[in-house]
């Protein structure tokens, strides 16, 4: 699946998007955050406060207990500040 990052999440990870293949036991958005954070220092920094991180699956906001199966694109970003 494709993962996209925005704002300071993108800056901390050091890339705007990537393709990942998480293991089968990673079932929810929260699981995925934990798995991504465990990969390297940059990702650990981006996800150091997981509760702050917002997520979207295929362009719709989701909570961290949402299932990721079937997702084509998952995005992680900070709380929004537009308008």
């Amino acid at each position, binding site marked *: 699946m494709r993962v*996209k990052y925005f*704002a300071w999440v993108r800056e901390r990870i050091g890339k705007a998007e990537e393709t990942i293949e998480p293991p089968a036991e990673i079932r929810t958005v929260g699981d995925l955050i934990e798995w991504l954070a465990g990969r390297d220092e940059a990702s650990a920094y981006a996800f150091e406060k997981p509760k702050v991180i917002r997520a979207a699956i295929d*362009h719709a*906001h989701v909570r961290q207990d949402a299932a990721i199966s079937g997702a084509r694109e998952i995005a992680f970003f900070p709380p929004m*500040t*537009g*308008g």
Partner: protein
Amino acid sequence: MTAIATIRIQEADFDIAQEIAAMSRDRTDIGAVVSFTGVCRGSENGEPIAALTLEHYPGMAEAEIRRHAEEAMSRWPLSGLTAIHRVGRIAPGENIVLVVTASQHRQAAFQAAEFLMDYLKTSAPFWKREESARGSSWIEARDHDDAAAARWTKS
């Protein structure tokens, strides 16, 4: 007449007068046009800023605004709705966002514009980064914006 929402995300500035005029052009069923313009302030938390840079999530930003625009049109009897959000670098004094709503009577137009702005601030995927003499940093979300959006939730 079924209302159609116009949603645009663009780097270029917009012409407020032109967008308002377009709303009622060739129509006589509209009695109220309300517009809200969000403008870049020259200071943030008392500190002068040089500019804002707006980042967005292409695809989702349009989808999220459209979803809330359609909800506004289902909740209020609107004749038209336009929402334009700029992205990229924006200097103090420049426009950031425009919402125009039209209806037969003012109440629906006022309420729908406020509803859409409240959701635009809390759920449309845009992020502001400020530039100042001290460097640049991401603007933090405000709790009172969440509270403003929450009051529209149907119980």
